[in-house]
């Protein structure tokens, strides 16, 4: 009986291995960078979360100390291929929440700064923000699908 990690090994997939590795490094690197930038200034990130007007400040400020580290750990999981599937699943969930929150803010007419990459993203408009989120979401889902295909193939 093979262990789950060996079942999820990337031995036979329709996506070439080097393409997957590149995608993993891009997605992982982006989330590590985004996490580090936010971890360096959690008070500012708390303010950015609060700006979406979805959560009360008491929760926003606590999330601001937690989310950056979750992003960093998930990014590392992709690059180091440890807890890989868990990292991918969390990132998919996180990006989904970001997209929903961004669209909700736009619909409510809020002038938000996403805060995704600290000062670097301060002047990003809605389209840029949403575009990057969707590209990242696409990459994460592709990696999840590749992972799922491997799972099915190995089980057979």
């Amino acid at each position, binding site marked *: 009986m093979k262990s789950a990690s060996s079942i999820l090994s990337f031995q036979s997939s329709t996506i070439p291995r080097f393409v997957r590795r590149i995608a993993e490094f891009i997605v992982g690197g982006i989330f590590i960078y985004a996490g580090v930038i936010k*971890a360096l200034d*959690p*008070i*500012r990130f*708390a*303010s*950015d979360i*609060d*700006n979406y*007007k979805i959560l009360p*400040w*008491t929760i926003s*400020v*606590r999330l601001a*100390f*937690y989310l*950056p*580290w*979750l992003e*960093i*750990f*998930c990014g590392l*999981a992709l690059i180091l291929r440890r*807890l*890989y*599937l*868990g*990292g991918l*699943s*969390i990132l998919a969930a996180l990006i989904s929440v970001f997209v929903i929150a961004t669209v909700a803010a736009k619909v409510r007419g*809020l*002038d938000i700064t996403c805060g995704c990459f600290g000062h670097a993203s*301060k*002047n990003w408009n809605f389209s840029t923000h949403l575009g990057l989120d969707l590209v990242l979401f696409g990459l994460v889902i592709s990696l999840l699908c590749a992972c799922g295909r491997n799972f099915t193939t190995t089980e057979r």
Partner: protein
Amino acid sequence: MRQALILVVLAFLPGIGQALYFRDKVSWQSPVPASEMVTVAQARAWGRNAIWVDARPDVEFERDHVSGAVPLNEDRWNELLPRFLATWSPEKRVVVYCSSQSCNASREVARRLRHEAQLKNVFVLQGGWEEWLEKK
């Protein structure tokens, strides 16, 4: 699922450590402590002892602003800060405002004035420009 749970728990450790480190530097109950907020009426009562700081983007400042207000936004922070400091004096109270209650530019500018410029007596205007217009 187990992997996700491990990551979720792992991320708590540095998060809690960082929160403990910042425990005295963060306002945990509200974005701006009540002591750092000021109403339009209070700020008006300060008269000449108040410096009004407009934290909105330049375009909005040029359209209209509180009479005598100094522009100071994060887009041109390095350029505008010296101009603001030229009008500042220690006995004056600084009132920062942005467009409305929901904006956070005034909070950020006030925070930077306190921490980066080391100023005291910096207040955030409740309700921002919208409130000021209503009470005009």
